[in-house]
């Protein structure tokens, strides 16, 4: 027996190869006579090896771009992007909010203010993401996929046009195999947005999300996003943002998106 009794800490340090050689030999000799503890030590060793093995693939993964950029960036540009509790951006928003409230109180400027703040907010929740979430929430609903059904299409159009303060009309997609189911009003980033729902003969649903919150002012042409199972084509036309979402093949969705765009442009 060693004059220095073996402690549990010694056993852990032995497992982690943190003991000086002399002590390690003493622990080894002790373990040879204590099969119970030896079993524990073996199990702990095995844990170490298995954990390294389990997470080793992470070391070989390609670094996500956002992390690579952030690691490579010089402090100067990053300084602007860092996120303290109240970033300069948040302070600007608060200041803008106060200004807007004042303007609103002064009268008549609320519409203008809403536009300005929605544009800023839209950077938080991009159009394609909003649309995909709305699609995922409502399209699986068998009983109440829409608020107003196609049998009341005229009322639907009137109602949504009124709420969005601009004429809106669901495009006709019957030629492409998609019939209108109906539509609903949804909260957008700063006001109402509309969703029209369609379905094909197999019951597969497609939604057209329509927002007067001019989200991406520079956007031209179609853009594509994928949110989980959902493919989304989205575009901006005038002051409207559109997004067509469905869990269908990208090519087919593109065909429908082109038709929708053509009808709305008329």
């Amino acid at each position, binding site marked *: 027996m060693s004059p220095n009794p073996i402690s549990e800490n010694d056993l852990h340090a032995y497992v982690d190869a943190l003991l000086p050689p002399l002590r390690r030999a003493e622990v080894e000799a002790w373990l040879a006579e204590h099969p119970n503890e030896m079993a524990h030590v073996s199990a702990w060793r095995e844990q170490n090896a298995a954990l390294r093995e389990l997470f080793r693939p992470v*070391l070989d993964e390609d670094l996500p771009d956002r*992390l690579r950029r952030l690691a*490579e960036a010089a402090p100067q540009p990053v300084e602007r992007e860092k996120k303290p509790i109240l970033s300069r951006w948040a302070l600007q928003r608060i200041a803008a909010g106060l200004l807007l409230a004042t303007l609103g109180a002064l009268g008549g400027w609320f519409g203008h203010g809403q536009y300005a703040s929605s544009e800023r907010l839209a950077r938080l929740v991009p159009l394609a993401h909003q649309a995909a979430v709305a699609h995922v929430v409502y399209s699986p609903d068998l009983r109440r996929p829409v608020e107003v059904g196609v049998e009341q299409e005229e009322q639907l159009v009137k109602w949504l046009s009124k709420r969005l303060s601009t004429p809106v009309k669901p495009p006709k997609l019957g030629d492409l195999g998609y019939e209108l189911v109906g539509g609903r009003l949804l909260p957008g980033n700063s006001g109402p947005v509309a969703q029209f729902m369609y379905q094909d003969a197999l019951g597969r649903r497609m939604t057209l999300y329509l927002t007067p919150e001019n989200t991406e002012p520079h956007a031209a042409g179609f853009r594509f996003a994928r949110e989980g199972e959902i493919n989304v084509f989205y575009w901006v036309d005038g002051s409207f943002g559109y997004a067509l979402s469905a869990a269908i093949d990208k090519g087919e969705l593109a065909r429908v998106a082109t038709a929708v765009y053509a009808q709305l442009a008329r």
Partner: protein
Amino acid sequence: MDSRALLGELPRLRRYARALVGERAAADDLVQDTLERAWSRLAQWRPGSDLRAWLFSIMHNLRVDQLRRPALLIQPGDGEVPEMAMRATQSDSLEVGDLGAALERLPEEQRAVLLLVALEEMSYEEVAVTLGIPIGTVMSRLARGRERLRLILAGQAAAVQLRVVR
């Protein structure tokens, strides 16, 4: 701190975050927050000292803050499918799924110590500094974490055998 050194630490930061947090997107968010805070606290970094230990302690503090906040689950919106770390060999007595699941069942404070020791191969002193706790606490968390993990895995093995017998 130069960016090449920082870049060099990224894979290990990601590995630790993944093992600690479990889910890929959440783990990478934690790494991103760590990098941002590291840049913003550059003044506190003493050149020549251990960059990895500094980054890990930043990550630890961020994680502690996170856990104090009520959980708000946000689904990743970038369309990435969360990947599970997988291992090729099936012959070992510890199966991958078992170990991952068992690890998640450890209290996070024990998991953190175990991972810093097992994955990062830190000395107990380094773990104590990184987590800002006394070395005695490191040892007791390590001991409890290892024992608990062993029992969970042994229990799983027993349960499997039981099912096989019946």
